[in-house]
């Protein structure tokens, strides 16, 4: 089961409040989308429609912006987000192997979310910690000097 987007009245009013502020600024769409992504964890069509009505921008256009940027997503992400840095410094130090290991151990394709909605696996671009390459992050936590062994350990811990 894919985790469903949780749209509550409370979150909606949070979005509305954010839009009230941004509407007054020039170029309100990006800040609004950042807010929506933060509040709901993704920006599905119903949310896009609300933004469309409020900012008078067509839904297709909003979706065009949402799908253009890697930071926004239309589908909800998993409970845990594993991101492996594929910046050059990390790549030449073997981060592809780490990504493959996560993909194998979590049984999920890169960019996808596991069926139980527990994990999303992403490849990210440089997060600027190249001195510690290869790097990966699980949710907010950063793991430095990654290795396949470390992946195994982390996955075990996450699954338990």
């Amino acid at each position: 089961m894919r985790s469903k987007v949780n749209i509550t009245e409370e979150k909606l009013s949070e979005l509305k409040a954010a839009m009230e502020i941004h509407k007054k600024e020039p170029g309100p769409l990006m800040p609004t989308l950042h807010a929506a992504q933060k509040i709901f964890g993704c920006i599905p069509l119903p949310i896009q429609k609300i933004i469309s009505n409020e900012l008078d921008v067509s839904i297709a256009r909003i979706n065009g912006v949402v799908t253009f940027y890697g930071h926004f997503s239309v589908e909800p992400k998993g409970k845990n987000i594993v991101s492996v840095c594929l910046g050059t410094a990390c790549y030449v130090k073997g981060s592809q192997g780490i990504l493959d290991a996560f993909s194998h151990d979590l049984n999920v394709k890169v960019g996808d979310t596991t069926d139980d909605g527990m994990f999303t696996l992403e490849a990210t671009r440089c997060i600027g910690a190249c001195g510690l390459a290869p790097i990966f992050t699980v949710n907010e936590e950063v793991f430095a000097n990654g290795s396949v062994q470390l992946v195994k350990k982390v996955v075990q811990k996450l699954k338990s």
Partner: protein
Amino acid sequence: MKTLEELKALRKKSYEKMYMIGVTGGVRVQVGYGTCGIAAGAKPVYDTFVNEIKALNLDNVEVTQVGCMGECAFEPIVEILESNGSKTIYCLVTDRIASEIVEEHIVKGNRIDKYLLSKTKR
């Protein structure tokens, strides 16, 4: 801020505070707190310094965050500036090492050579 003189006065005051002008035995602990440092574990290190120095009631020691020094592979990096002009850079600092630095270097005044960046790199 209306005039350059005003700014310069503030600058003088800040400079003196930052570099402990006229303070005897002043110590400034700079913890590298950029993304690299944070990723490498600067937060517990910083917290350790703050807590231990508070516990020891060392009011002439200031702990501060600074940006990246560039030596990312050796983060977390801590630099100790003393009002006598000496500067010491420690690298790959952990919270345990941080305690040790407080005890040995800051309290007793003994530099701990084995943790020096200059030693580690060579």
